[in-house]
């Protein structure tokens, strides 16, 4: 099957999409979505808490269902698609990786901040030992210059990553910047190059096409844009666009459209749009999962969520620092000039 495809898509709605629904997936929802993705012939389906294995926490939001049950459910209905898991060293450990592998996960995506690849070697090596395909997932890619990205990608390759991803966690990159990054990686590493976009600036599709043109062959998408912030590159749309361009994805377009409309849309609490908060993420270069946390903090402290996100961008917070959101909100509220009542 693989050699009939020009690009291999990983569907991330059951991981990145978990952010958009406050980590409330049920086993039934995962069974239905994973089964439909398998029927549509999507090669990889990522299932984990939004912040990766063991992400269920007060910091990021607690999962309604233990992610291991969700992984098990997805594996049970996927006879063609492979199940992938995400792991951020510092949050998840080898222990959860092993548990996921035992349940049938076949791909481990080890995610680090773009400059911190050297926390990943033991996780990549262990995933290999467990017989998993491995991905080095370099997040918040826009925060490092291209030369630094190349250095870190080489580290990931040296640890045994089969693929290295440019991950635009903030949905901040512009198409030319994506082009430059993918080109630099294609010239400097020998393994597959991938791209993961966010649609905060309405550029996920344009960025993905730029990445494919430069030689990226592993591409992430989320059906109905079910991902953090404004979501990711919309999978069913990507499949259609690739078909028009003669790029073989091997994915069934009608089945993806039906999945998006009939199964995923009803799960969304609100439709995935580019709201002022998600637009601010892309504009300020802030980790996409911060959007809903900022919205809640803004309501609690009576401040504008955009001010919180802009301030977080200025302070160069990285993925995972959700605790900064409440703190910054509290600070803005404290410094806000008091309204004078007359």
């Amino acid at each position, binding site marked *: 099957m693989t050699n009939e495809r020009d690009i291999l898509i990983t569907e991330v709605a059951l991981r990145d999409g978990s952010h958009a629904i406050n980590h409330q997936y049920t086993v039934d929802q995962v069974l239905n979505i994973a089964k439909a993705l398998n029927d549509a012939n999507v090669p990889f389906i990522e299932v984990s808490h939004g912040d990766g294995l063991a992400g269920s926490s*007060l*910091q990021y939001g607690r999962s309604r269902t233990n992610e291991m049950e969700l992984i098990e459910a997805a594996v049970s209905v996927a006879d063609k698609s492979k199940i992938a898991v995400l792991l951020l060293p510092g949050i998840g450990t080898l*222990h959860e990786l092993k548990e996921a592998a035992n349940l049938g996960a076949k791909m481990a995506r080890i995610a680090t901040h773009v400059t911190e690849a050297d926390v990943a070697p*033991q996780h990549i090596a262990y995933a290999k030992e467990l017989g998993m395909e491995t991905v080095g997932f370099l997040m918040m890619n826009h925060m490092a210059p291209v030369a630094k990205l190349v250095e870190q990608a080489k580290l990931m390759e040296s640890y045994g990553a089969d693929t290295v991803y440019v991950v635009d966690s903030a949905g901040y990159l512009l198409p030319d910047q994506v082009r430059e990054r993918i080109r630099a990686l294609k010239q400097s590493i020998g393994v597959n190059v991938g791209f993961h976009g966010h649609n905060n600036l309405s550029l996920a599709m344009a960025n993905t096409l730029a990445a494919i043109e430069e030689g990226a062959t592993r591409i992430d998408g989320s059906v109905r844009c079910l991902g953090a912030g404004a979501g990711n590159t919309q999978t069913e749309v990507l499949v259609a666009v690739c078909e028009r361009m003669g790029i073989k994805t091997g994915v069934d377009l009608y089945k993806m459209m039906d999945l998006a409309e009939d199964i995923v849309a009803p799960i969304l609490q609100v439709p995935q749009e580019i709201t002022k908060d998600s637009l601010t993420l892309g504009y300020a270069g802030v980790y996409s999962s911060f959007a809903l946390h900022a919205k809640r903090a803004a309501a609690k402290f009576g401040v504008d969520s955009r001010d919180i996100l802009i301030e977080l961008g200025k302070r160069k*917070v990285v993925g995972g620092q959700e605790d900064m959101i409440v703190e910054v909100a509290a600070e803005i509220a404290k410094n806000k000039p008091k309204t004078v009542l007359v």
Partner: protein
Amino acid sequence: MSKVKVAVLGSGNIGTDLMIKLGRSEFLELTAVIGIDPQSDGLRRARELGYAGVDTGIDGFLADPTLKADIVFDATSAKAHLYNAKVLKEAGIKVIDMTPAAVGPYVCAAVNTDEHLDKDNINLITCGGQATIPMVHAVNRVAPVEYAEIVATIASLSAGPGTRANIDEFTETTSRAIAEVGGAKKGKAIMILNPAEPPIMMRDTVYTLVEEGKMDEEAIRKSIADMEKVVQAFVPGYRLRTEPIFEGNKVTIFLEVEGAGDYLPVYAGNLDIMTSAGVKIAEAFAKKLLTKETV
């Protein structure tokens, strides 16, 4: 007044910072810094300051009859500690283990030092543990904690190769100690590296969920403020960044740890709190030993 003799095993960042702090101690007398690399900056500094700089490792130190110590700080690695622990025990020398090996019981300097003064080997948990467990304990002593979760964010520059290669040990060890030492029924730890320039100071967020019906805001606020002072007594740069936030049965505490800037820069509060905790515990040992002598 006589002092208790100590040696520092490991001549890297932690060992060198310890050396500077020990130079100020009223109760401890540093005799030797022990390394394995004759070229190391730490050993060169040790010799400049008049301490013995041993470059033949723990075996070299133990074989030299002119060198003595009642307490050794082990600032090497978890793997090396297993051997060091064995030979130091045989030699009858107390060990303060700063590695994640955890051969001895977990000790958080601000919480349970006194319980373990009779042990021959104690473990310092992790930097995140030294910073956050006091606050878990502070809440738990007035309102039983069902669950505590900590997030330690440190500057990338202050996380050396050892920390990076063993990041799982950080999360697992800290999680266990939040429960064992902090008193929470269940613990969880998260570590984040932030590469921002200029480097950020160590920051820690502590979330605790107290038992239903046991929330006592006033008592918790007071307990937290008291604990802040206890830690400040040996880490002056330890402070609450903002008022704790109370929501239902959840208490969120925001901390910052500024280092003393001895050998390591001030942003490396994570390393400073470890070395400061090590010295505080060694001083407690020393006071006990000195009291025994005078009796």
